[in-house]
Each structure stands twice: as C-alpha cells, then as structure tokens.
C-alpha cells in the first residue's frame, strides 16, 4: 500500500498578522509550524503503516524552509518526503494548490490513499483535500474521525457529523481528510529527529510534475482574496477568589451575574 500525506507549513497561529495592502498573512519572520491538523494525518498514515504495512510519503507545497515540517514527519515515521517549491507556485489558491499536489501524487504513482488534515489553520478553507480528489478523480471522505478497516481495495471510515457519524465504505484509491479526534499524534524521538536531519528531500518544480503552467500560481487561481482580517483577541484574566467554599461560590455567582454570563434566580 502506498500512502501520501499532504502537509502544510503554517505560521504559529497566535502570531499571525495580516498585510493591510495584500490582505494576505505576513509570513516573513514568523515562527512556522506544521499545520496542527496535518499532524493527525501523518500519525494516521504511520499507524496504518504499522498495522498493515505501507510506504508513507509526505509532500508539501511551499518555500524551501517548509522542509522542516517534512523532516518532522519523517522523524515520526514517514518513509520519505518531497517538497514542491517554485516561484511559479506562489499565489496559488486552493484549486491551484490541489492541482499541484495532485500532479505530484500522479508522479509518485500507484498511490492508494491520500490523507490530509481537515483544513489548514491559516486559510481555514478545508478545500484542498476535496480538490485533490476532484483533480485525481479519487473517491473521498472528509472529516474522518476513525479508520475502521482498510484492505487493498477498500477503506471503511467514520465520518464526523454534527450529531453523530457516518460509516463510509470507500473504494481505493481515495482521499480522506481527518479531524483531531482520530488519534493522538506521537512526539518525535531524538533518534528519529537526528535521522530525519540527514535525509535528502527532493524539490520538484512545475516541469518535474508536468504541471500546466496556466493552472498554477496566481494566474491559475480562479479565486482572489478580497479581504482578510484577524479575529478579535479574546481578553482573559484570572481572578482569585478567597474565602470559604460557600463564600467563594457566592462571589463567583455574583461576578458572573455582573458580567451577564449567567442569569436566573436559582443561582
């Protein structure tokens, strides 16, 4: 079985800033991390490898420094990694990005399963996974919370819904996007990290994956970012309440009432 995991390097979310002119996230000078949802995708692939035997390949589209995330995935147990990096890829929207990733998956060849995090925390679109499935004409299941079983031809997954979950049998090859309920990602060991620092990560350009230049980058992107703004920061503070448990409870209820957090005569 051959599994490809698509990962993305994103800014650490509590540090993100928006460029007022371009409306895009300012990535320069920011600490970059693996998209948190992608860590669950990597973990699930490694678990499937440990359970059923598979080759796990991680791919990412981004600047050369995105190699750090790919190495992290290898340190966790992925077999190899490929970086898609070229100025021509810059400015790609989710459709163009999923096109680039799908061309890389085609080049890898004989891929049975593609796993993505449900969304990237910088864009929050959740479109790239389904986009890859559309480009490759693979079956897909999004928001997967559990892989029940997998064999050479099918995968059975639980797909999260608001009030429960669907059980889906999907024919392989397929794309799944995973939510964080699916597993608890492992932490890299020192041995794994040191080994991952030594591996070569090939960099593929548009010509390496036979990408149509008109379908990538800003010009190949059917959508435009019109406006982006950071969410309002939530103010948090700790208030220490002293006294007996009864007094503390009374004071707490009083404070919550004053802040309109609760109402009612029973409190």
């Amino acid at each position, binding site marked *: 079985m051959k599994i490809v995991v698509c990962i993305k390097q994103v800014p650490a979310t509590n540090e993100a800033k928006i460029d007022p002119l371009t409306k895009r996230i300012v990535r320069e000078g920011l*600490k970059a991390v693996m998209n948190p949802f992608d*860590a669950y995708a990597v973990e699930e692939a490694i678990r499937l490898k440990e359970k059923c035997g598979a080759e796990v390949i991680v791919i990412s589209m981004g600047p050369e420094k995105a190699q750090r995330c790919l190495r992290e995935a290898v340190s966790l147990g992925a077999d190899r990694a490929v970086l898609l990096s070229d100025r021509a890829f810059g400015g790609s929207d989710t459709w163009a990005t999923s096109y680039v990733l799908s061309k890389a998956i085609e080049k890898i060849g004989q891929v049975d399963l593609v796993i993505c995090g449900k969304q990237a925390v910088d864009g929050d679109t959740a479109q790239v996974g389904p986009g890859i499935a559309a480009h490759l004409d693979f079956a897909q299941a999004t928001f997967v919370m559990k892989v029940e079983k997998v064999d050479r031809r099918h995968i059975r997954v639980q797909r999260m819904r608001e009030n429960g979950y669907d059980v889906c049998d999907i024919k392989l090859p397929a794309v799944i996007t995973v939510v964080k309920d699916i597993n608890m990602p*492992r932490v890299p*060991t*020192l041995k794994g990290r*040191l080994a991952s620092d030594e591996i070569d990560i090939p960099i593929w350009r548009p010509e390496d994956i036979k990408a149509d230049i008109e379908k990538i980058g800003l010009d190949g992107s059917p959508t435009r970012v019109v406006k982006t703004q950071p969410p309002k920061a939530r103010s948090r503070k700790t208030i220490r309440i002293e006294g007996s448990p009864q007094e503390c409870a009374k004071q707490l209820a009083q404070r919550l009432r004053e802040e309109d957090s609760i109402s009612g005569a029973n409190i």
Partner: protein
Amino acid sequence: MREHIENKMYHIEILPPKQETENLQEELKLFAEKYNKVLNGGYCACITDNAMGYLAFQGTEIIEHLKLPVFTNQVMIHLNTFHTKADLHNILDSCKSLGIKYLLVVSGDGSERLPKLQPADVNAKGITRSVTAVELLKYIESEYPNDFCLGVAFNPYEPAEHEYEKLDRKLKAGAKFIVTQPIIQKNDVVDKLIDYCSIPVFIEAWMSKKISLLSQAVGYEIPENEQFDPIETLKMLHKIYSQCGAYLSILGFKTQYALIKDIW
C-alpha cells in the same frame, strides 16, 4: 536524599533541547557541557520533562545517545503525566538500565501536542478526573518497587489548604522528598511545610533576574523587582532554610555557576 543536604549538594535544573530547535546538534553539545559540569562539580543534574508544556527531547534518550555518564546519586529525571503508557515505561526502563534512581514525579504542564496518561494506564480504578502526580507515583511504586526514590512538587502559590491536601495524598503514595516551586523570599507556606513533614525538602531558588518568567512558570503574578539579585537571594534562602536542600532553576552557567560553590 538527606545526604544531598548534608553534603551540600545543589540540585541544578537542566532543560533538554526543545523539539522545535533548528540547531539540535549545537544544543545537544550545550546540554552535554552543562550536564558534565554539574556532575563534575559534585552536584545533582535535574532534567526537566517538557517543562511548561514546551515539547522537548527526553533526558534519558539524550543521555543514552550522547553516552553521558550517570552517577546514581547525581542525576534526577522529572517525569510528568503527559505521556502514553508505552512512553512512560520506555522512560522508566531507561532510567532503570542507566542507573538513574531519583525521579521527580509531577502532574506537569500539558500541551495539545502531548498525550495524557489515562486512569486505566496507571491502574487508577474509579478515577474519573485526569491522572495526577499521585496516581503516577502510586503506579511507579507498584510497577517498579524499590527501583526509584520518588519525589514530588509542592506549590506554595496554590491555596494552602488545597496544596496540603494534595501533599498528604502524595506522601501516602510514597513520596520520599519534596521540591518546592521557586521562591525568592521567606515564604510562610514553605515554613509550615518544613514543620509539617519529615521527608527532605528542597527549596527551589529562582536564579534568573527576570521575575516575569517566574510569574509565568508558577502561574501567579509576582511583583517585578528590578533590584532582584538571584545570588544574594540564594544566600538568604540558605540562611532561612538551613535545614533544606537547594534546587536551582534557570541557573546561568556562564556567570552564576562559578559563584554557587562558596555560597552553601
């Protein structure tokens, strides 16, 4: 542990390299330098476990990888509840095979990227809340009887009644020594602690000039003091708590290390 106090052996905290580091080799080298310095100085090297929830490499795997010496009486490993059961046993087995005897068992600071021990992992039947240092302590005592000397933390910044209730459970679970959270002056709750229990107490002295970092570490706002002098404070703490051991956090190896020799 009592001989550590009698022999005036400082406990010196060393932070392993963080997982996110770009310069792992350099940081490993630095870790080894500090570790060897502490051991050669006759002190006890205390290696943290994902301190403040920041993902770091495990002390035992670094010692194994760098083939660092282990003098049983001079190495302490922190162990918190943010591990899988398999990882917990890996760490404990490594400690045992390396000859590490002292473990500081703490609940620890979590992070979204860290797993958490579940009650069933530590045979804590009937517990619905999360696993704390108490359950972990009991579990290590039962699974590795007589292999380790287990210590616990004491937080004088928590409401005293609650902290003493926790301490009672820790003592009952088998704690053999106590390390306080860092203090920078005489502390009434710590005074009471010394009278309260008969096991060795180690006072954690804050060796950084940055009080804001201490506030962050203990989760309680400690007023800024630009005059704060860690070395003078350490001298003062020795005088006040002469019957206790000393645990030094954030010790400056370039400037402060040479000074501590003549203080105690």
